C-alpha cells in the first residue's frame, strides 16, 4: 500500500502565489522527510528535508511544516515563479535499521505557475 499519501495531484497558481503540497504517513518509524523536485526528463533533485525534532524548516523560498502528532507534513513555496513549474515528490525514510536510506515516495504533485 502507499506508505506516503500526497495531495493534490496537480496544482496551478499565479506567479507570486503560495502553492501548498500536503503529505501524510502512517508508519511512526519514519524519521526523515525529504522533498524532491523533478523536471521533465530529469532525475529528482533534493529540495529540502526535515527531521521530526523540528516543526518547521525554511530554505530560501521553500518551507516544510511538520506535524508529528498528525503524521503530516507540507511544502510551501513562497513567491512562486514560472521556473518552479515541476513535479514535486514528498518522501519518507527510516534512519536506522535494515531499511536505512530506503525512500518511500508519494505519487507526486504537478505544479504549474502561470506568469
Amino acid at each position, binding site marked *: 500500500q502507499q506508505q506516503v499519501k*500526497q495531495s493534490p495531484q496537480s496544482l496551478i497558481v499565479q506567479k507570486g502565489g503560495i502553492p501548498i503540497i500536503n503529505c501524510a504517513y502512517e508508519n511512526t518509524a519514519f524519521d526523515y522527510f*525529504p522533498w*524532491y523536485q523533478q523536471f521533465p526528463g*530529469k*532525475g*529528482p*533533485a*533534493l529540495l529540502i*528535508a526535515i527531521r521530526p525534532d523540528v516543526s518547521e524548516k525554511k530554505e530560501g523560498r521553500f518551507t516544510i511544516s511538520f506535524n508529528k502528532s498528525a503524521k503530516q507534513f507540507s511544502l510551501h513555496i513562497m513567491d512562486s515563479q514560472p521556473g518552479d513549474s515541476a513535479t514535486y*515528490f514528498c*518522501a519518507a*525514510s527510516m*534512519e*536506522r535499521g*535494515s*531499511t*536505512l*536510506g*530506503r*525512500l*518511500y*515516495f*508519494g*505519487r*507526486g504533485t504537478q505544479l504549474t505557475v502561470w506568469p
Partner: protein
Amino acid sequence: DAGVTQSPTHLIKTRGQQVTLRCSPISGHKSVSWYQQVLGQGPQFIFQYYEKEERGRGNFPDRFSARQFPNYSSELNVNALLLGDSALYLCASGTGKTGNTIYFGEGSWLTVV
C-alpha cells in the same frame, strides 16, 4: 564534484531481451539504491546495496537483479523484459549511515517494444 552518473541515458529493447544499467555513486558514498519510476508515478524502490552487500529489496520479480562492485559502482539487470518494464530507472547514492542525504542521478530511460 561529480554527481551520481548513470548510463545509458536512453535505450530501446525488445520484449524478452535483457538489459544492464550502470551507476556510479558520488565519491565517498558507499550506498547505492535503484528505483523504478513509471510515467506519472513516484519512484518505487527496487534494491539497496551498502558496502557491496544487498541491504534491501522491494516488491519486484526475480527478473530484476543487481550488484555492487568494490569501487561502489552498481549494475541493475533485468531479464526477460516485459512491456511493463518501460520506465525511468533511477540510481540513488548516499553514505548509507544515519543522517545521510540521498542524491539521484538523471536516470536511464528504458523503452520495451
